[in-house]
């Protein structure tokens, strides 16, 4: 009992030493500088949108940082002679090195993504522009333009998002835009087929060649209108002397079949009358409908392809009023140009209106690469 009492007394006497010993074991120490640097680096990497540009690498980096922090905690918990500060610092140095690599990777991927999205934006805009040109050259109906408008809107959104570096959102908008562009293309492609059809263009070319040949043989003027290019070509003695931009019927994609279809007729015609005071400045009246037009009209009526009460129509002219104007099927020019043609053309001047004069036309050009 005495021994125990003496031992307790001695223990209380030595308690301060014991306290000192525990203090040394657990006292707070300054963390290695690398720990703070790693924390700052992680923050910097996160701000650089690592989750967008290198999510997998970031996850691996965070796990590595976690392991280093755990090692630091474990090391701090050890009795001081058993601590290995160098090993812990080494782990943080490895984290810092990996972090530097990730920053380089982010910069590289960001540049690549920016360039990639800029390229895709430009490509999509090009597709939309090409299709837009087609809708303005040849009226292909409202729906295709509606789809194009939606696509353009999404491309605008994508561009604005890309400027703010919201690349995933920009990509999503671009994908949706591409879908609308594709729909617009599919809507208009059937209507545009005949303007890229080699056989059809050969037929048109033959008519054009015949008209030019006639002009050459007679030494007089001849007029050729290419609907797809919206051009009127004036020939004299087989030589092209003038080219004019023209306005056509609002449904100029089709050949005229009946009155009120707003289409400009295609075929070989002649000037039947010169009208000096037309509602649209001056006019050259054409002999529409010709024999071929009548045959096609009768055929379409038999097939039920046109309204039962529809008439074949007439009064198709080349007139003034402005090339920007839409017509009911006539060919319209600016007044000062109409003045020139009116003065040069005579009654019986051949006028050939075709869908396209050349294999290489606005439609084939716009369709290429779509």
């Amino acid at each position, binding site marked *: 009992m005495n*021994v125990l009492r003496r031992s307790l007394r001695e223990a209380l006497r030595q308690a301060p*030493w014991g306290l000192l010993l525990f203090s040394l074991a657990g006292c707070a120490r300054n963390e290695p500088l690398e720990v703070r640097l790693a924390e700052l680096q992680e923050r910097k990497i996160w701000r650089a949108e690592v989750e967008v540009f290198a999510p997998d690498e970031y996850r691996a980096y965070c796990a590595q940082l976690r392991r280093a922090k755990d090692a630091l905690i474990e090391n701090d918990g050890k009795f001081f002679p058993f601590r290995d500060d160098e090993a812990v610092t080494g782990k943080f140095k490895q984290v810092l090195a990996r972090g530097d690599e990730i920053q380089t990777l982010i910069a590289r991927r960001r540049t690549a993504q920016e360039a990639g999205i800029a390229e895709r934006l430009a490509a999509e805009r090009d597709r939309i522009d090409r299709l837009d040109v087609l809708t303005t050259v040849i009226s292909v109906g409202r729906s295709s333009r*509606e789809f194009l*408008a939606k696509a*353009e809107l999404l491309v605008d*959104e994508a561009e604005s998002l890309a400027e703010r570096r919201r690349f995933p959102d920009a990509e999503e908008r671009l994908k949706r835009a591409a879908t609308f562009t594709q729909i617009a293309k599919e809507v208009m492609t059937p209507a545009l087929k005949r303007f890229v059809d080699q056989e059809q263009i050969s037929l048109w070319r033959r008519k054009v060649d015949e008209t030019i040949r006639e002009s050459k043989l007679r030494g007089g003027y001849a007029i050729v209108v290419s609907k797809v290019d919206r051009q009127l070509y004036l020939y004299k003695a087989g030589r092209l002397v003038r080219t004019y931009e023209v306005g056509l019927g609002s449904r100029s994609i089709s050949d005229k079949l009946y009155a009120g279809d707003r289409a400009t007729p295609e075929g070989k015609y002649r000037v039947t009358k010169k009208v000096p005071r037309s509602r649209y400045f001056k006019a050259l009246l054409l002999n529409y409908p010709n024999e071929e037009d009548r045959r096609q009209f009768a055929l379409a009526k038999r097939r039920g392809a046109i309204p039962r009460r529809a008439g074949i129509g007439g009064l198709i002219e080349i007139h003034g*009023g402005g090339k920007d104007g839409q*017509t009911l099927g006539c060919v319209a020019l600016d007044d000062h140009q109409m003045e020139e043609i009116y003065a040069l053309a005579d009654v019986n001047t051949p006028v050939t209106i075709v869908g396209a004069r050349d294999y290489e036309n606005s439609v084939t050009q716009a369709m290429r690469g779509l």
Partner: protein
Amino acid sequence: MKGFVKYLSAGISVMLMAALLVGCAKPPTQEMDAAKVAMDTAIGAGAEKYAKEGLKSLNDAWAAAQDEIKKQEGKLFKNYDNAKAMIAKITADAAALKAETEKKKEEAKQAAIADQAAAQAAVAQAKALLAEAPTGKGTKADIDAMKADLAGIEASVAEIGTLISSEEFFAATDKAKAISAKAADISAQVQAAIEKAPKGKKKK
């Protein structure tokens, strides 16, 4: 005998200190639970979208507090005072973040609603101008094209409302701004077409 007493007393001394100091402090689990609830509430309010930076700071602070607890758990002299202070700050910061998130979300919502109204007004203006634009023979062919364009844009206006309803306020703003710009562009083109249109020429 004297030596034995000395060793025994030293041993007892160490054990006493250890018994006194080890385990007398406990991890602040209740405070941690409260902090976690506060953080989850901030996330639920939309902090991931509207206060990303603040949430990141909060998550980092949470990890630091966890590290501090781990550190103390490995010590003989456990002292969770620092961890408690850290967790208390997290709880307070989370509450502030929730308030900030709600404020930013409301701002985004109001901005989206204002942009939606602006887009609707821009489309309505373009529509009114298109209605005034001359039609039929002798008018600009572009007018028809613009009408189709506007129809496409108008269909997209409804999407702004859908985005606002689903609380996609930034996306709603993006769409509304794109629509406004496009509609304004159409209005300018129609205006130019009206000004250029030949006066007094009516379709037969």
